[in-house]
């Protein structure tokens, strides 16, 4: 069977199996390969599931409650996700919590993301009343001075998340009551989670830090 298939193009058929075999052998020997750009799948991962009816209803509510705020929307894993400009974040979040059509009373998660070309701050919201989720994404195009208004005045739970994003990425959150370092030691100038920051010990050259001897795994 295999011979018959290889029949029409013998040169190619002889060449093809070799790189494939090499690649698998290499993968076994050298597991930690650098990520290479993967082939884009026919359907993006987030669009495999159809939007939930709640998410579509939420999109309609959002269009009314967010009057005057420009946003782009898409459905990701059947939940609604919107992208807005950083200057609209505070007003948008206020309405998300205060507007009776939305009533997102819980800020599940606030994450900073270094997208290499720009920064993003992503807010994952949840409504205990309606049991629905919303993702708000703020694009911070200014890479040198990334800043977005603090939402601590809306949800107190944003406090430590914003402090973490500030020290890890250098994102400023004007309006935050106490934007001091949270997890890192005092005096750390590096922003550890930036993509430009290599994975090396920050304090390797400090006095008192014991260097690992050569040859010890």
């Amino acid at each position: 069977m295999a011979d018959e298939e290889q029949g029409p193009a013998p040169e190619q058929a002889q060449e093809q199996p070799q790189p494939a075999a090499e690649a698998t052998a290499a993968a076994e020997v050298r597991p930690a390969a650098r990520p290479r750009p993967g082939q884009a799948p026919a359907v993006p991962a987030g669009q495999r599931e159809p939007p939930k009816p709640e998410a579509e209803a939420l999109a309609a509510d959002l269009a009314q409650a967010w009057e005057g705020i420009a946003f782009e929307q898409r459905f990701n894993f059947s939940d609604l996700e919107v992208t807005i400009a950083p200057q609209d974040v505070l007003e948008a979040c206020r309405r998300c919590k205060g507007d009776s059509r939305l009533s997102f009373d819980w800020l599940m998660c606030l994450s900073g993301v270094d997208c290499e070309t720009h920064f993003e701050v992503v807010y994952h919201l949840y409504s205990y009343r309606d049991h629905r989720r919303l993702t708000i994404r703020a694009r911070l195009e200014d890479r040198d001075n990334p800043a977005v208004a603090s939402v601590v005045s809306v949800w107190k739970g944003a406090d430590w998340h914003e402090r973490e994003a500030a020290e890890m990425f250098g994102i400023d959150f004007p309006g935050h009551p106490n934007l001091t370092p949270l997890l890192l030691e005092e005096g750390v100038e590096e922003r550890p989670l930036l993509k430009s920051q290599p994975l090396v010990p920050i304090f390797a050259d400090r006095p008192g830090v014991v260097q690992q001897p050569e040859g010890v795994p």
Partner: protein
Amino acid sequence: MITERRLDTVDMHINVGPQHPATHGVFRMVLRVDGERIVDCVPYIGYLHRGFEKLAENEEFQEVIIHLDRTDYIAQFNNEFCYLMAVEKLLGVKPPERAEYARIILAELNRIVSHLMFYGAFGGDAGAITPFLYAFRERERLQRLFESVSGARLMHFYFRAGGLKEDLPEGFLEEVRRILPVLKQGIDECDTLLTENEVFLSRTVGIGAISAQEAIDYGCTGPILRACGVREDVRRSDPYSLYPTLDFDVPVGKKGDTFDRYLVRVQEMRESIRIVEQCLDRIPEGPFRTPIPRYPHYRVDPGEVYVHTENPRGDYGIYLISRGGVQPFRVKLRSPCFCNLMALPAMLRDAYVADAVMVLGSLDIVLGEVDR
């Protein structure tokens, strides 16, 4: 001549930790006190920060699981469960039914282990040593089971994308079935040791209460929120895996104080046993892992997903971004203790200094997860 003099008081600062048995890890808080009353509390965290999120960006999807065991090191199966659901969502893979049930059994048993740990430590905070020994006797039964499953007592590394590392060991399910009635009896024994103990009640009832509104505002989840009377459980409200098919109750408290948090956890252990019993009846024979191309060095489709699960300490969330390589682009861990701890100053307001230890103990923090 005797003149009446007004008593001037000056606020005093008391430092607790970072190395202190009552902080359950390396955690520091500075209490500002007026006499015996706490005026303000400032928590300091980060002593156990290991840069999990940075490490995760430099390792393959499979290797990240190892670090997740080390975030919340008392509920390892639950952490792995959450992360792998995120990976599987991006991969578009569903684990076989046997793996799903095995995961739920292990996660629920892990919840019991975690709550037993809380129970023992919390009794210790209140000055009772005996409950600790009883709790650890029960915990040991489950730890032996976990050891038979993964070969390790604490850092299991057993769940894999698409299922499990290997099938459950022979006789495991029978052993779980044998242990459950013993465990039930053990939990009842623990219950009688502390729950109606007068000294324990006087140290917990009405202490460190927080309103439901405030708890939601701070992002408190899990037993802290349910103790306030909010019947919210991710397994019910945003269900995942096979939880929608399982029958269990979500216990809640009334006042949101330290005692209610304790009581909610004790009841949750019984509910977990109920879930495990149902899973034991239903778990089928069959494959334990769905094949994935190039496993274990698989590529994950570009995309991003936020998955949250109900861990023993609350809502454990993973925000995972992939750019189509073998390594994640960004992993953000929403740690339940991190958010619950934010509400500590609100809980300690106007409490006595001696109660600070009880309130902190009732949060059941694991610093490995707070600091990541």
